[in-house]
């Protein structure tokens, strides 16, 4: 499952969806908005997405993670729009037979998202706004 959405999401909902007879480990990564960056106080992040390409790239990352680490499934949910400090940004949920491959697949997914997915953020800080 891949989703790019403005709305908030429930971590528990997606963790519950991943449960199943053949899942012995569920690993999650939740990215949230931090209140400081490079010495500046951040009060909001604004995310912009190239939707068509981001959906395609996220699905490729999901499929590669499933194949490479032999996990049962991967969910990736990424928000866009304006997000305040503490709000949820991105959720990765990996379900697998065992924890080792679940951790590895989850780490792989967030690294690949940062490297390959056309999503950008603008930091709104106490000293101005910056695309990072």
């Amino acid at each position: 499952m891949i989703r790019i959405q403005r709305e908030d999401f429930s971590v528990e909902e997606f963790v519950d969806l991943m449960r199943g007879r053949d899942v012995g480990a569920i690993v999650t990564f939740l990215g949230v908005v931090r209140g400081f960056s490079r010495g500046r106080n951040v009060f909001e992040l604004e995310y912009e997405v190239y939707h068509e390409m981001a959906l395609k790239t996220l699905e490729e990352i999901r499929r590669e993670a499933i194949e490479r680490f032999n996990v049962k499934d991967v969910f990736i949910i990424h928000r866009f729009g304006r997000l305040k400090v503490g709000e949820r940004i991105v959720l990765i949920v990996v379900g697998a037979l065992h924890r080792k491959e679940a951790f590895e697949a989850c780490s792989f997914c967030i690294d690949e998202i940062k490297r390959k997915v056309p999503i950008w953020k603008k930091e709104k800080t106490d000293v101005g706004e910056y695309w990072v």
Partner: protein
Amino acid sequence: MPVVRFFARFREEIGIDRVWIDFEGSLKEILNILIKDHPEVRGFVEEGFVAVNCRIVEDLEVRVGRCDEVAILPRFSGG
């Protein structure tokens, strides 16, 4: 005709989010036409990525047809 889209910082700097180019040819030719009207595009291409139909391309000789979409993309910062 091909459309060229801009995102995030590049969109803000150039002041438009898309432009249609009345030309079909190589990506290099499309970019050169664009650079005549918007010289800042040269720096965007050097700094970021260029995608054709949602695929990042490095070969500027790739052909761009009338239904194709080119995107000029800053370095990504999602997650």
